[in-house]
């Protein structure tokens, strides 16, 4: 766990961003957290980062959806650990996330889910 690792939260709901931020800060106080409310903003944030280590991305957002954004983030930061964080718990969406090689975390979010995402080694499930 290197100091200065980065975590990007992408969600159009302010509450969801604040909740994720709070749980990440508790589980991994060393992480530097960035937020974006939609895809284009996330890409702008990403452009200003040297590298990205973690990202949670909502699915239903204005503009680009979470899967399309995750594909772009993964292209730019192939080593980043990314999870789709959504209340849309349909099998079709889980499958798309798996095909893209990213994790899937269902809302509502809690401390345990985020702690597992930022502390466990290996593939995200």
């Amino acid at each position, binding site marked *: 766990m290197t100091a200065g690792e980065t975590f990007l939260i992408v969600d159009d*709901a*302010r*509450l*969801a961003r*604040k*909740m994720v*931020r*709070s749980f990440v*800060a*508790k589980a991994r106080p060393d992480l530097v957290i960035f937020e974006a409310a939609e895809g284009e903003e996330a890409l702008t944030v990403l452009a200003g980062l040297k590298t990205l280590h973690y990202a949670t991305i909502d699915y*239903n957002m204005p503009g680009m959806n979470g899967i399309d954004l995750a594909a772009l983030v993964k292209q730019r930061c192939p080593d980043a650990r990314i999870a789709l964080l*959504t*209340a*849309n*718990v*349909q*099998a*079709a*969406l889980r499958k798309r996330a798996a095909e893209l090689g990213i994790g899937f975390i269902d*809302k*509502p979010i809690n401390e345990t889910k985020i702690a597992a995402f930022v502390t466990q080694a290996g593939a995200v499930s």
Partner: protein
Amino acid sequence: MISTLDLRPEVRDALTEIFNIGIGHAAGVLSELVNDEILLTVPELGVTPRADFVATAGALWTEPASIVRQSFQGPFRGDALLIFPARESLELVRALLAEPSPLETMSELEREALLEVGNIILNACLSCIADLLEQEITNALPLYLESDPATLVKALITDPDWYVIFLRIDFTVKRQNMRGNILFVLDVPAVTAFGAAVEKLVDHFESGP
């Protein structure tokens, strides 16, 4: 346009997120039922005092609708209503049942299917509210009604102090776009408890790191 309470942007955001989570879970269950992906979103939400809602409700629905009504009890009581324009509800159940029917009116089987859809969607939203409040809400059996929604809402909300949480939902089933409404008619203790819980949630995370 229905006038709504002047909620803090953070509270409006939180309310929309809570209902989006409920609707998202409902979409998951429905998608298993139809074995296809369902897109469901909550693009509009408002909280309106009874008098304001009743005064403008007539303009909201200009045609008969299919309504699923679910009364609930617990730390507070109220009614949850799912309202689809009659034509769209026919398209919805026929998409769900995958059995085209030439009839202009709903068969018994189609009514039952719509009742089940209403049950799933309303329960998912009520469960989210119950979990947020850390309380148990018990539901009565859902009822299916074909009625003028404005008249029904007026008849339901007799107490002038009650509130209406009004949601517009847009969804796509098997590539067909549809639109409906969800209403939660809440008594004063309910609105107070729900509002306080949302405020607490927002304040907790707003004051966080």
